[in-house]
């Protein structure tokens, strides 16, 4: 694997729309009023702009997450934890057969800088791609005033457990996170914590549902609790996951409220395998050989359990570990 020593370059600014074009390696990125246009030496690709921006800010905010992030069937990134592949058509049978697929590897920092520069130029005030579509404006049209607030909200990552002294706080009215409209029908109480004298502060509990209900972003997990390398993430999901995720390891979903519809496809070819509808209380593994995309008709609460053991991706890639998690005997 050759890691290109490239950094993002600003190209021309379109006089009519006001948007600037960018280059990273041999990929160029342009946008017009409706679409992002991606070009590479052997091909071109078009992505609806809302989808492109929703995918881009999450990809950066997640630190490129685990494995493959498909913006759509053609374009995306693969995380190698220090370096990142940017690909077009590399996992699409049509592009492969036509010989127009292309992949370049960069440092993670270079890709992050490129995607951040693109996002800052292409996102105007009134539009937040981390919000649900019902809660934000539209990205279409010519460039407006640039946003001055943070575009990105990365993982809230508890070191041990949310709310512990010295750890990441739970969301609250006081910290600027009101309960989302979609969970206004729920009553949120606090657990009763009674410590014996001398043990004050050593017992801990939170209302996790309250924390999730106050999230101002969608499809953007936060880590709530950690057992060694076992990471419990929680997230609120509304509308559609704006990427298709192909994990480099097995992961698990526990549906805490409402429902999410998942489309499942083969990770390498994109060939559909079917669908899973998860309702409150359902538990399902997402094997390491698939890609999945979620659709949430109503804002819902999802728990994701990830194994963050370093080097796990190589053990799956080599075949040492099976691409599914349970031995049924």
């Amino acid at each position, binding site marked *: 694997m050759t890691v290109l020593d490239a950094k993002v370059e600003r190209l021309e600014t379109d006089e009519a729309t006001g948007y600037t074009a960018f280059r990273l390696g041999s990929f160029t990125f342009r946008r017009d009023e409706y679409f992002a246009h991606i070009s590479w030496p052997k091909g071109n690709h078009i992505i609806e702009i809302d989808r492109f921006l929703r995918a881009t800010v999450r990809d950066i905010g997640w630190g490129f997450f685990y494995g493959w992030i498909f913006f759509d069937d053609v374009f995306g990134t693969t995380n190698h934890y220090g370096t990142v592949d940017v690909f077009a058509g590399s996992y699409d049978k049509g592009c492969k057969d036509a010989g127009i697929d292309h992949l370049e590897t960069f440092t993670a920092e270079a890709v992050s800088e490129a995607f951040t520069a693109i996002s800052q130029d292409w996102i105007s005030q009134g539009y937040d791609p981390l919000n649900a579509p019902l809660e934000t404006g539209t990205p279409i049209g010519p460039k407006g005033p640039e946003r001055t607030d943070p575009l990105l909200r990365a993982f809230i990552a508890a070191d041990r457990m949310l709310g512990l002294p010295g750890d990441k706080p739970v969301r609250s009215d006081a910290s600027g996170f009101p309960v989302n409209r979609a969970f206004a029908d729920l009553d949120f109480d606090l657990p009763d914590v009674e410590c014996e004298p001398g043990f004050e502060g050593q017992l801990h509990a939170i209302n996790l549902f309250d924390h999730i209900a106050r999230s101002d972003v969608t499809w953007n997990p936060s880590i709530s*609790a950690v057992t060694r390398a076992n990471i419990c993430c929680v997230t609120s999901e509304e509308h559609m996951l704006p990427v298709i995720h192909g994990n480099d390891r097995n992961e698990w979903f526990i549906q805490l409220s409402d429902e999410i519809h998942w489309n499942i496809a083969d990770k390498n070819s994109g060939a559909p395998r079917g669908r899973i509808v998860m*309702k409150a209380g359902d538990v399902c*593994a997402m094997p390491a050989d698939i890609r999945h995309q979620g659709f949430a008709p109503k804002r819902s609460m999802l728990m994701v359990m990830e194994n963050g*053991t370093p080097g796990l991706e190589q053990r799956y890639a080599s075949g040492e570990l099976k691409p599914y998690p*349970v031995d*049924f005997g």
Partner: protein
Amino acid sequence: MAYKTRTGSLASYEKGVIELDDDLRKYAFSNVFEVAGKSAPYERVAVVQNLEYVAEVVRAEGDSPWYAAPHDEFAIVMDGEVTFRFVQLQDDQVPGHEGGAIRLGAEPNGPRMGRVTARKGHQVLLPKGAAYQLSSARPSVAIIQTVDGPETVKKWNDICVLKEA
């Protein structure tokens, strides 16, 4: 627009569907309320397995045995009300096995740390260095984030959807 949030319970839950051109065992699809409904009290049934890590579903009913683990565990109450009592372990009482909860013969003789009463949606720290006991006056459900251990019960063939309905 007024929204209606749907959470499940032992008495009322609706299971989703899995329709795949694939071996359904790879997805290990189950439902925590269904698992708890068919479990004995305090049977710690694995519904998630990520190599050495698991999430166990527990039907809390009456008093559980006393447990301890050589690492932090976390419980999320999904239905009902569960009280967790904690006793501090002395250094030589902290379990030395690799991971997961072990069952203690009786309440440890260390100092009582206190208790947490948790209801639906609450997450509770079960800290390393403490023994704990769960109690519930009526059947309740909790998910425990932990490590595959001596108390982990695996009955995947009984709890998972193996073929499409």
